[in-house]
């Protein structure tokens, strides 16, 4: 086995003359389990993309650590770059540490493999010293305590994890076996094991211990559920007290190697309540104040202003991101610069995170900016709070450049560009017209009266006329009807006379009837009563010639009858004729 290892090493070493070499080296070939040893990979040219070997069979205490060294001898410079691990074996057995690879000078090269034999750990040591001991017996005298300041927190709420070493033995050597990974937390170290360690004295269970704080970290849980403050492990080479006084005195006491690790602490992370969660909430947990400021309160358009948003307080400040500035449109905003003044103390993370924004107003106007809303959850009070910074008045004057510059933000059409070269028309320089807004007549009472008046007038006129016509028609009607009646009366008398045989009377009565009828109907005086006149009037009124002739005949007959004896036939026909004539004239006149 040894020969094989040596042989392969020599073989690899010989190739180093011609090209880049990547060598793996290990200090030991056989080592007890639990005991640390170093493996170093070295390349003699700058390399990148280091890919380590598969180390699942080992505990990685540290690594890969990168270091480089330069050696100048005479005129030659030799540089070497190395990647190292500190490992310890888990279980006894023979293991091969596979090769690692790196890219150097553009070529990917692999290292040699290593074989290592892991022997029985504590037992071997115990056999050496003749004492059987587990690590339990030491835990009374030497232990690491890992504590968390809070066991139950909200998502994002800070807590502190502390690792303290309690020691009541003497140890000659110590080393970090494993650092806690603190998965699920975002952490900020207050103190790390690489800082200077101070020792205090404490009494626990009636025993005196020397206590050193190894590590103090502020943790911010990044997910809900159960998280673990996992163990920090160290190894110590503890001096054994021999029963032999002289051995102790002369420092020949044996020492034993122990692995000490802290017990894990479980942390319950609660989700933030949904009730009352403000819209602007973005994950800030703690206690904060917000304020804003600008460097200038009066600018011209297109000038830049610096707006600073300051969040001050304690909590997950470093996880805060840019906020919504709530600026009016027409403002250009650039990504902010973040300035932090934050201290990580044992009590937590506290300080100021300042966002510095560059903003440019594009148009003139009076604005109020800076009313930025910031919401956070206070885990001690278990409530959401929203704070709004005070608004700052900002006056933006018109851009110092001409008007055209102000609208360069939108493209101008060709017509507009042409128009810029045109000028306005000239003023009216002769006379001007006026329009009075007041109206005194239209809509006034007088106006409505004058509007209504013509209608009234019309209705009155119509009414009056109607009445007059009515009356007139009446009078005439009366007379006409009367005329008809009187004539009828005499005609009836004539009929009676006819039937009684008094023919003379018939003619007389017919004559009377005709005369009366005609005078009334035609509205003529008896003095004007002559046959010619009557006939004239009748024909004027449109009475037919036949009717007029019939009338003429009737009147003639009556006249003749006065002077001569009448016959039956004549009187009857005359009477009939008279009736007919009257009827016809009635129709026409």
């Amino acid at each position, binding site marked *: 086995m040894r020969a094989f290892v040596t042989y392969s090493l020599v073989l690899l070493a010989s190739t180093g003359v011609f090209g880049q070499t990547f060598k793996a080296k290990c200090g030991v070939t056989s080592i007890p389990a639990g005991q640390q040893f170093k493996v170093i990979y070295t390349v003699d040219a700058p390399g990148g993309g280091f890919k380590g070997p598969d180390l699942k069979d080992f505990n990685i205490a540290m690594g890969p650590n990168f270091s480089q060294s330069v050696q100048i001898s005479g005129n030659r410079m030799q540089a070497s770059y190395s990647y190292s691990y500190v490992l310890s074996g888990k279980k006894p057995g023979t293991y091969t540490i596979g090769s690692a690879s790196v890219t150097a000078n553009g070529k990917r090269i692999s290292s040699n493999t290593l074989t290592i034999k892991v022997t029985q750990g504590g037992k071997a040591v115990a056999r050496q010293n003749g004492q059987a001991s587990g690590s339990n017996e030491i835990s009374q005298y030497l232990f690491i305590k890992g504590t968390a300041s809070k066991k139950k927190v909200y998502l994002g709420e800070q807590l502190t994890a502390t690792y303290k070493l309690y020691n009541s033995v003497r140890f000659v050597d110590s080393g970090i076996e494993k650092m806690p990974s603190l998965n699920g937390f975002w952490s900020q170290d207050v103190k790390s094991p690489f800082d200077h360690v101070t020792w205090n004295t404490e009494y626990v269970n009636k025993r005196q211990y020397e206590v050193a704080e190894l590590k103090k970290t502020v943790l911010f849980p990044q997910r809900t559920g159960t998280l673990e403050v996992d163990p920090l492990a160290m190894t110590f080479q503890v001096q054994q007290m021999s029963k032999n006084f002289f051995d102790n005195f002369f420092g020949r006491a044996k020492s034993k190697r122990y692995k000490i690790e802290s017990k894990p602490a479980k942390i319950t992370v609660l989700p933030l309540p949904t009730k009352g969660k403000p819209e602007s909430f973005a994950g800030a947990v703690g206690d904060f104040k917000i304020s804003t400021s600008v460097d200038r309160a009066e600018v011209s358009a297109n000038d830049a202003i610096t707006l600073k948003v300051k969040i001050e307080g304690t909590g997950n400040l470093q996880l805060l991101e840019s906020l919504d500035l709530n600026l009016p449109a027409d403002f250009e905003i650039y990504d902010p610069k973040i300035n932090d003044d934050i201290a990580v103390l044992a009590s937590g993370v506290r300080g100021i995170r300042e966002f510095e924004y560059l903003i440019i107003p594009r148009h003139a106007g*009076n604005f109020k900016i800076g009313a930025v809303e910031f919401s956070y959850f206070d885990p001690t009070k278990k409530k959401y709070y929203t704070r709004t910074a005070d608004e700052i008045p900002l006056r933006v004057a018109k851009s110092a450049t001409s008007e055209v510059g102000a609208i360069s933000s939108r493209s101008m059409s060709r017509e507009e560009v042409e128009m810029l070269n045109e000028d*306005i028309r000239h003023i009216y320089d002769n006379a001007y017209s006026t329009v009075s807004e007041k109206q005194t007549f239209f809509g006034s009472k007088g*106006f409505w009266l004058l509007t209504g008046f013509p209608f009234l007038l019309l209705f009155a006129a119509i009414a009056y006329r109607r009445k007059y016509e009515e009356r007139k028609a009446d009078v005439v009607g009366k007379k006409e009807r009367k005329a008809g009646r009187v004539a009828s009366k005499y005609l009836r008398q004539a009929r009676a006379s006819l039937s009684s045989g008094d023919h003379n009377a018939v003619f007389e009565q017919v004559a009377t009837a005709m005369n009366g009828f005609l005078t009334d109907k035609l509205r003529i005086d008896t003095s004007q009563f002559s046959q010619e006149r009557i006939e004239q009037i009748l024909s004027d009124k449109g009475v037919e010639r036949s009717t007029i002739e019939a009338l003429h005949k009737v009147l003639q007959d009556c006249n003749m009858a006065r002077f001569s004896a009448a016959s039956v036939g004549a009187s009857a026909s005359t009477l009939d004729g008279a009736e007919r004539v009257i009827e016809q004239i009635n129709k026409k006149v």
Partner: protein
Amino acid sequence: MKRLLIIPMLLLVSFTNANNMFELGNQEYEAGNYQEAINSYQAVLVNGDLSPEVYYNLGNCFYRLEDITNAIYHYERALKLDPGNEKAEHNLSLCYAQTVDKVEPLPEFALTTWYKKVALSQQTDTWALLFVAALLLSMLSMAGFYYVKSVGMKRTLFFGGGILFIISGALLLLAFSNRSILHESKYGVIFEPSVTIYSAPTENSEKLFILHEGTKVEVTAEKNDWREIMIANGNTGWVSQSAFKEI
């Protein structure tokens, strides 16, 4: 006797005074003293009269002073009183080429402009008087229809009366149009350099868009100090009444 003369004298004096201010304004404009010209022109209108020519001249003064917003405002006022005025429309188009918001104003239907011109050609009271006179004549004509005997006359009077009645209706319409044109305050011009338009009459509502000075808006509703406005492309929103001036 003296008292009777005083009132007409005063009117005459005020008229000539106003006329003088107008002349003075013109002189100052020609001399390039635009601010003084503005003062003179405004003195002409101090007794509450409106004048399209004076508004137009004021528009020119503001344009010269590079106060485009006020120029727009005054040209629009001139056009309200004298629709279709070519000088005002031309100058206004130069102004709109320089506003920040590019909002294309819809051209008015030519017939509408012509009608407005006609309606504004007389004072409101003039139309009212003419209406009453026409109505009276029409009624007299109709009344006469009932009184004359001749059929020919009757026909003339009836149709004449009918036509006069229609004319009087038109005159009444003109009187109403005249009044509504003068009194309507439907339009305004934004004076605030940059103003936010909201979705509701309160600042706690969504911000819709921004308008800049010189933009003409149409007022469609009001609530307290807020006005609902519409711009030429149809977008609507609410704005504080202090941000614009009514034309």
